[in-house]
C-alpha cells in the first residue's frame, strides 16, 4: 500500500478532470465519480495509516521535479509517517462523509456537477498537502486548497455576500502566504533545499540558526496564521460561512483550516530551535482562542457560532504546539476534525430543515429531527470535554501542555468554560424549548438518509476517536504521532478533573440560562451592554481594517494614479509638447530668418537688377551717352 500511496491524491484529481471534461452534464454520474474516487482515497488512506501505525520508519518517495545543476534542485515527493497517517485518516474520512452528505444537501442545486468537481479538486490538494515531503510541494497544494476554498465559498456567487467572502478569504490568506513564501525563500537560501528532511537536519546541525531561524519560523507561522484563521488574520473564516454548509464542515472546520496547525506541527524542529518564535506562536494561539470563544458567546447565526468555535479551537492547537505540546496539538486536531465536522453537518441538517441560520427562529427541533439532535448533542458534549468522549482526552492533553505556564493554563480553562457554554446555548436554543417560529417549525423535517448516516458515523468517531490516545494504551496516539521520540502521555488526574468540571459548569450555566430559564439572558445582557455590543460586533476587527488599511490603500492608489497621470505621463507628454513648441519656434525662425535670407537674396538681386536694368535700356542714345561719360571720366582721371 505504501508504495502506491502517491495514488491517494490522484483518484480525486482524475475525478475532477473527468467531471470537468466529460460528465459535467450528468449530475448523478458526476457525483458518483467523485464519491467513488474519494472512497478509493479513503480505503488507501486508511490502509496506509494502519500500516504505518507503530512503524517508526519514515517512508519517502520522490522524483526530480527540477534538476538543473546543483544550485537549482527541487525534488518533490511524498513522505509517510505517523502524522501523515493520522492526517490521511482525518481528511479522507471527513471528505467521504461530506461528499455523501452533499448528495442530499445539494440535491436541488443546478450546479451540482461543478460542486463535486470543486470538492474533488479540494480533496486532491488537501491530500497532497499532507503527503508532501517538502515545503515546496506543501506550498503548492496549500495554495490549491485556498483556490478550492475560494471557489466553494463563492459557490453561490449570485449572492453578493458570498462573492465578497470568497475574495476576502483568498486575499486574507494570501497575506499570510506572503510570510510563507518568504519563509520558503529563507529556508532555501539558508539550507539549500526545501525537503523536510534536508531543512530539519540543517536546523539540527545549526546550519541555520539564531535570528534567521527565528525569522524563518515566524514567516512560516504567518502562513499558518492566515490559513488557520488566527489573530489578526482570522476575519475571513466567519465570512466563509457563506459557502454551502458541507463545505464549511470539510474545508472550514475539519481539514483546510487545520493545514496551518499541520504546518506548525511539521516544522516542530524549527520552532523547538527558535524558542522566541515558539512563544509568539503560543501567544497568538491563546489570544485567538480567548477572543474567538468570547465572540462565540453572543452570535445568533448557527454557523457563525461554530465558525468562531473553530477559530477558538484552532487557537488551542496552535497554542499547544507553541508550548511544545506536539502530541497535544495534533491529537486535538484529529478529535476536533470529527466533532466539528459533525457539528457543521448537523447545523446543515437543521438549516436544510428550517431554511434559516438564525437560532432565534428555531427552537424545539428535537421533536422533529431526532437523529440530528442526538448526534449534535454528542458532538457538543465532545467539544465541551465531557468524559469519556474524544474531546475530553484531547483537551486534557492541551491543558497538560500548558502546565508550567500559569497564564496559559488559566486562559485555557476559561476558553473551555466558554466553549461549553456557547455550545450548549446553541444546542438548547436550537433543539429544545418552544419553537420561536411556528411556521418554520411546522415545515421542518428530518433530513434524508444520505445526510443522517454520515452524521451517525461521525458521532461514533466523535465518541471513540479519543480512545486511541488513552494514557494506558501500549501503542497509543503519542507513540505513533510524535516529534523525535515516542512517549506515553502523562495523565494528570487532578487537571483532568478540573478541566471536566469547568466544562460541566459551562454546560450548567447554559442549562440555567437557556433551558430552565432561571437566569434571564436579557438581564445579563443589560448588565454588560458595552461588552455585549463589542462581542456582537466581533471586536470591530472588520471596521478597523477597513479604516486602517483598506481605505487608506485605496486612497493611496488614487494618489499614485494621479501621480502617474500627471507627473510621469505629464513629463512624457510635456516633453512632447516642448518638442512641438520647439518646432513651432523653429518654423518661425525658419520662415523669418532662414527663408528670409533666401528670400532676401532674391529680393536683393531683384532690387539690384531693378537698378542695374536702367543701364540696359536698349536705346542707342543712352549707350552713346554712357560711352561719352566714361571717356570724360577717364580723361579727368588722367
Amino acid at each position, binding site marked *: 500500500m505504501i508504495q502506491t500511496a502517491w495514488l491517494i491524491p490522484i483518484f480525486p484529481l482524475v475525478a475532477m478532470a473527468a467531471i470537468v471534461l466529460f460528465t459535467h452534464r450528468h449530475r448523478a454520474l458526476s457525483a458518483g465519480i467523485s464519491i467513488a474516487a474519494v472512497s478509493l482515497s479513503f480505503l488507501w488512506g486508511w490502509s496506509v495509516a494502519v500500516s504505518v501505525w507503530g512503524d517508526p520508519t519514515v517512508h519517502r518517495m520522490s522524483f526530480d521535479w527540477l534538476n538543473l545543476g546543483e544550485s537549482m534542485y527541487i525534488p518533490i515527493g511524498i513522505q509517510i509517517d505517523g502524522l501523515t497517517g493520522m492526517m490521511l485518516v482525518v481528511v479522507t474520512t471527513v471528505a467521504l462523509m461530506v461528499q455523501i452528505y452533499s448528495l442530499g444537501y445539494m440535491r436541488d442545486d443546478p450546479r451540482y456537477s461543478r460542486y463535486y468537481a470543486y470538492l474533488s479538486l479540494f480533496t486532491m490538494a488537501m491530500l497532497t498537502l499532507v503527503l508532501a515531503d517538502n515545503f515546496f510541494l506543501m506550498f503548492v497544494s496549500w495554495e490549491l486548497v485556498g*483556490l478550492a476554498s475560494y471557489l466553494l465559498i463563492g459557490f453561490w456567487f449570485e449572492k453578493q455576500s458570498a462573492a465578497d467572502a470568497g475574495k476576502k478569504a483568498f486575499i486574507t490568506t494570501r497575506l499570510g502566504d506572503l510570510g510563507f513564501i518568504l519563509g520558503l525563500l529563507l529556508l532555501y*537560501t539558508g539550507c539549500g533545499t526545501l525537503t523536510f528532511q534536508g531543512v530539519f537536519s540543517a536546523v539540527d546541525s545549526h546550519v541555520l540558526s539564531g535570528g534567521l531561524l527565528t525569522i524563518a519560523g515566524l514567516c512560516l507561522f504567518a502562513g499558518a496564521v492566515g490559513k488557520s484563521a488566527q489573530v489578526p488574520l482570522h476575519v475571513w473564516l466567519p465570512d466563509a460561512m457563506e459557502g454551502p454548509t458541507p463545505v464549511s464542515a470539510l474545508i472550514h472546520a475539519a481539514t483546510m483550516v487545520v493545514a496551518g496547525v499541520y504546518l506548525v506541527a511539521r516544522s516542530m524542529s524549527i520552532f523547538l530551535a527558535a524558542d522566541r518564535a515558539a512563544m509568539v506562536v503560543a501567544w497568538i494561539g491563546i489570544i485567538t482562542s480567548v477572543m474567538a470563544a468570547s465572540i462565540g458567546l453572543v452570535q445568533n447565526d448557527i454557523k457563525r457560532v461554530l465558525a468562531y468555535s473553530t477559530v477558538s479551537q484552532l487557537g488551542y492547537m496552535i497554542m499547544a504546539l507553541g508550548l511544545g505540546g506536539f502530541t497535544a496539538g495534533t491529537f486535538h486536531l484529529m478529535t476536533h476534525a470529527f466533532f466539528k465536522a459533525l457539528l457543521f453537518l448537523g447545523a446543515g441538517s437543521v438549516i436544510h430543515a428550517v431554511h434559516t441560520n438564525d437560532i432565534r427562529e428555531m427552537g424545539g427541533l428535537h421533536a422533529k429531527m431526532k437523529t440530528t439532535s442526538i448526534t449534535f448533542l454528542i458532538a457538543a458534549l465532545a467539544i465541551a470535554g465531557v468524559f469519556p468522549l474524544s474531546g475530553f482526552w484531547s483537551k486534557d492533553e492541551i491543558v497538560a501542555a500548558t502546565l508550567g505556564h500559569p497564564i496559559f493554563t488559566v486562559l485555557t480553562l476559561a476558553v473551555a468554560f466558554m466553549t461549553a457554554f456557547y455550545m450548549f446555548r446553541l444546542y438548547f436554543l436550537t433543539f429544545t424549548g418552544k419553537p420561536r417560529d411556528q411556521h418554520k417549525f411546522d415545515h421542518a423535517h428530518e433530513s434524508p438518509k444520505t445526510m443522517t448516516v454520515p452524521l451517525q458515523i461521525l458521532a461514533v468517531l466523535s465518541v471513540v476517536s479519543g480512545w486511541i490516545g488513552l494514557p494506558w494504551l501500549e501503542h497509543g496516539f503519542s507513540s505513533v504521532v510524535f516529534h523525535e521520540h515516542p512517549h506515553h502521555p502523562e495523565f494528570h488526574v487532578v487537571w483532568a478533573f478540573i478541566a471536566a468540571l469547568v466544562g460541566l459548569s459551562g454546560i450548567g450555566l447554559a442549562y440555567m440560562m437557556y433551558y430552565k430559564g432561571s437566569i434571564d439572558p436579557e438581564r445579563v445582557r443589560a448588565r454588560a451592554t458595552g461588552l455585549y455590543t463589542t462581542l456582537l460586533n466581533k471586536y470591530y476587527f472588520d471596521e478597523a481594517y477597513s479604516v486602517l488599511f483598506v481605505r487608506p490603500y485605496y486612497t493611496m492608489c488614487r494618489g499614485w494614479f494621479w501621480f502617474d497621470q500627471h507627473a510621469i505621463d505629464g513629463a512624457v507628454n510635456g516633453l512632447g509638447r516642448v518638442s512641438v513648441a520647439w518646432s513651432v519656434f523653429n518654423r518661425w525662425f525658419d520662415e523669418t530668418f532662414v527663408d528670409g535670407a533666401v528670400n532676401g537674396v532674391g529680393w536683393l538681386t531683384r532690387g539690384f537688377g531693378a537698378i542695374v536694368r536702367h543701364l540696359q535700356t536698349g536705346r542707342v542714345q543712352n549707350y552713346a551717352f554712357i560711352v561719352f561719360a566714361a571717356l570724360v571720366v577717364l580723361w579727368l582721371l588722367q
Partner: protein
Amino acid sequence: MGILTFLIFWPALAALVLLFLPTRHAHRAGWIAAATAAIEWIASLWLWFGFVPGSGFQFVEHAQWIPRFGVAYQLGVDGISLLLVLLTTLLTLIGVASSFSAISASRKGYYASLLLLETGVIGAFCATDVFLFYVFWEAMLVPMYFLIGVWGGERRIYATIKFVLYTMAGSLLMLVAIIWMYQYGARSGAGTFNLSDWYGYSIPPSTQVWLFAAFALAFAIKVPMFPFHTWLPDAHVQAPAAGSVMLAGVLLKLGTYGFFRFAVPLFPQGYAALADTIWVLAVVGIVYGAVMTLIQSDVKSLIAYSSVSHLGFVMLGLSAMNLIGASGSVLQQINHGISTGALFLLVGMIYERRHTRQIDDYGGIYAVVPVFTSVFLIVALSSIGLPGTNGFVGEFLILLGAFAVRPIFTAVATVGIVLAAGYMLWMVRRVFFGTVTRPENEHIRDLGFRELAVVVPLVILIIWVGVYPRPFLDRINPDLQNWLQRVHASGPCPCGINKTTASTLVPFDTTGAIHPASGQDGGG
C-alpha cells in the same frame, strides 16, 4: 534557405500577397493569413524538436549583406530566444484566428500588418548581427503603428504616435552606441556588426557605463520599466485585441530580451555600475504597477498596468544574476506572453459582444457565460501566480534567485504577489460574480467553437508549464549558464555584491543536505 530565413520572410511574403489580393477576395484575407500563420507555427516547431540545449547559437545562417561596412545577414537562436520565437509564432496564429469576427474594415491591410509584425519580431529575436537586429527592431514599429492607428479605439492616433515616438526616441541613443561600437571595432581591424565579435571587445569600464545606459534606455522603454511605462496603458487600451496580444505577448519581451542579449553581456561592467538602479526600478515597478491596477476602470488598462508589475519580476530575475533567477526570468517572459496574451484575447472576445471594457458595465455574468468565466478565471489565476500554473513557476524561481542576493528588496517585491491577488480577484468579483446588473448582459453568447480553439492551447500551456516546466527549463538553462559565465568572467560580479558572499549564500552544501532526501529509504 535555412529555417530561420523561412520563418522570418514567409509571413512577409504572405503579407505581400495579401496586399495585392483583389478586393473581391478581401473577405478571404483572414483565412489566407491564418493558413500562413499555421504553416509558420508548424515550421517553428522544428526549432523545438531540433534544438540541442547548450550548444550556443543554432540553426545559424550567414550571408554577406553590406560587406563594405561589415554588415552581415546573420541569424541564430539559443536558449534565450528559442522559446520567444515559438511564442511569437503561436501568438500570431492565435491573434489572426481571433480577429475573424472582430475586424471587418480593410481586412487585407490588417492581416498584412499582423504578418509583417511577425516578420519584424522574429527577425529581431533571431538576428545575431547588431545592424540587422536594429533594422528589424525599427521595422516592426511600422506594422504596429498601423495596427493601433487604423484599427484601434477612439484615441488611437494619440496612442499610436506616443508609442512609436517614445520607442524611436529611446532607440536613437542605442543607434549612436551601435555606431560607436562599430567604430571601436574598426579602429583595430575590420569593422563589424557581428554580435559574437562584439562580445569579445574589452571596453574601458567608464565607457561601458555610457554604452550600457544607451542600450538600456531603449530596452527599458520597451519593457517597459518604471518610469517609462506610460505609453503602455494608452497603447493597450486603444489597440485592437490581436494588437494587444502581440504587444503584451511579444513586443514587450524584446525589451527584456534586449537586456539579456545585448545590454548586459556586451557591457557587463557598465551593467554592474547601474545594477542598483535596475534593482530599484524593478522592485518599484512591481509594486507600482500592482498599485495602479486597483484604480483602473477599464479592464485593458488594468491588465496593462499588471504587465508593468509582471515585467518588473522579469527584470528582478535578471538582476539576481544567478542561474535560478535568470532561468525564472526567461521563463517568466514566456509565461507573461501566454497569460497576458490570453487575458487580452478574452477581453477582446467579450468586447466583441458588448462593445465595452468598463468593469462597471458588467457584473454577474458568470451565470450567463460560464465557460468564458471559467477560462478567464484560470488565466487570471495564472497571471497572479497561483501554484499549478505557469506564473508561479516563473515567479518562484525569480524570487529564489533574487532573495539569495538581496533579501530585503525581494521581500518588498513579494508584496506584489499579494497585491496581484487583490486586484485580479476584485476585478473578477465585479465582472463575473453577483447578480446580473444590466439587462443587456443577460443574453451574452458564451464562447463558440472557434474562440475555444483559439484560447484552449494557451490554457494547456498555462497548466503544462505550471505542472512540469522541465522541458522548457532544460532548453533555456544550459545557454544561460554560459551567459552567466560570460557576464561574470569580466571583472567584478555585477550583481551588486561581492562573490564570496554570494557563494556562501546560494549553493549551500548541497551534497549533505539534498541527497539523503532523494529516497533511498522510500518504499518500505
